[in-house]
């Protein structure tokens, strides 16, 4: 599997990763090489094998429905680059 620079551009967009043209070039080559290595998985017969997504053996762990104290609004906002009147400030979505 070989990735073109255009495919890299598309994936970068999906990943919300701003890449320079030089990076796109570099990743096209490096990712192709890694994908080529990974292709050996096709040699493994997995036709009757269930996938493993979790190895803890647990599923649907439920917690008591209790009210607990959480961090304060002040603490939650402390690391935000931009805030206003107790809210996070983000880029507008509708004002293009």
């Amino acid at each position, binding site marked *: 599997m070989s990735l073109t620079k255009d495919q890299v551009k598309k994936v970068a967009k999906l990943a*919300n990763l701003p890449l320079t043209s030089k990076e796109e070039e570099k990743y096209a080559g*490096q990712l192709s090489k890694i994908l080529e290595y990974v292709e050996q998985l096709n040699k493994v017969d997995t036709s009757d094998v269930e996938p493993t997504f979790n190895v803890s053996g647990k599923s649907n762990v439920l917690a008591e429905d209790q009210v607990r104290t959480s961090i304060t609004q002040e603490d939650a906002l402390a690391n935000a680059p931009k805030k206003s009147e107790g809210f996070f400030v983000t880029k507008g979505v509708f004002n293009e």
Partner: protein
Amino acid sequence: MSDITSLTLTQTLQALKDKKFSEQELNSSYLNRINTLNSKLNIFLEVKKNTSGIPAGIKDVISTKNIQTTAGSKILSNYIPPYNATAVERLLEQGVSIIGKTNCDEFAMGSSGENSAYGPTKNPWDETKVPGGTSSGSAVAVASDCCVFALGSDTGGSIRQPASLCGVVGLKPSYGRVSRYGLIAAVSSFDTVGPITKSVEDASLVLDWISGGDNYDSNAKVEKFTLQPQGLKAGVKGLKVGMPKEYFGEGLDNSVKKVIEEAIEKLKELGAEIVEVSLPHSQYALAAYYILNPSEISSNLARYDGIRFGQSRETIGAEVKRRIMLGTYSLSSGYWDDYFAKAAKVRTLVKMDFEKAFESVDAIVGPVSPTVAWNLGEKVDDPLKMYLADIYTISANLAGIPGLSVPCGFSEGLLRSVNHERSLPVGLQILGKHFDEETILKVGYAYEQITDWHNQKPDLRFKI
């Protein structure tokens, strides 16, 4: 007392109890060492000048309340967590204090410590070599006696491999043994928090402290690991220890192989029965890992939007970008079945290999790393070559089983004179059944009692 900083955790606790020195003296001894060594080895990203408590280093991917936590990344260069990780909280309850946040590969992605945005940590045995990664600073902090013990995290070998390359003990607990709450998430179905220490007994004690159920991590097993001194010290007589033939084949450096075989011979002398086992899907573990790992990463790192905390995504480093790209690709429409689902099935086969092997043996031993520490810069431009450094550690993370790295010798016998290439530490890997940390600690402890490798210290006198 001049050698306070060379004591193990267990010895330190005893010495404090016997009033051989005070907590204040303990802390100032370690701070003095950090003062002389930190700028040369680049171990800590932040140092706290405490006057009490047992000084521990905490890997910088583990959240510490009101103490800057960068994960080795520029994107979190100004992030101050409003809470402690559960493992940290439990250490504080035991009278441990945080002496510093240790350097690491950015978001725990790498094998050499070189992916930190704050520069690489240096191997204390030879500053031109990598310390291994990703818990690079934690391993070096312990190896250079800059803390009593440290916490690291292990997603694909990140505790065991730097411990091996730096000549200290590293324990990757079973997945689910220690709460991941507050560990900055990278690969949620692989991530574990564990200790890097100066002895196996110390690792056992720290695991006792940090393990157990947690309402904030539903994967955490409620039953904690409890240190049973008689269990730890029971010896290995009659124990069946497996040697996977796949871990001794092509790619394993000859000098490492020799050291590992000698270590296994010692276990035999101690009364363990050595049996050859096979883990036939080992050869595919790395390929499966490098689909599953980036996939989970791409999803976990989507949270860094620069709105609630952190900087903008331009500040992410090269390896992290590479994995986000790879993961986004393998999860994208049309490729999911071919990559992610396929890799998750191979993961099942790797796990089943271990289950089958553990039907006939109590523990599995082999090398941690195919080579000793390599030169700084040697693999940074070849990601695939770097990934291959994790070939013997990754399977345990795919299966969720515990693994221990114990110092077991040096690549060229004992240290040579300064004119020669310095010989470097080798670690023995001991793998166990899921949630059976006791057996691997027992094997490691028995080995430590008849060898002196864990007491070897790098010669740092010229730097002080």
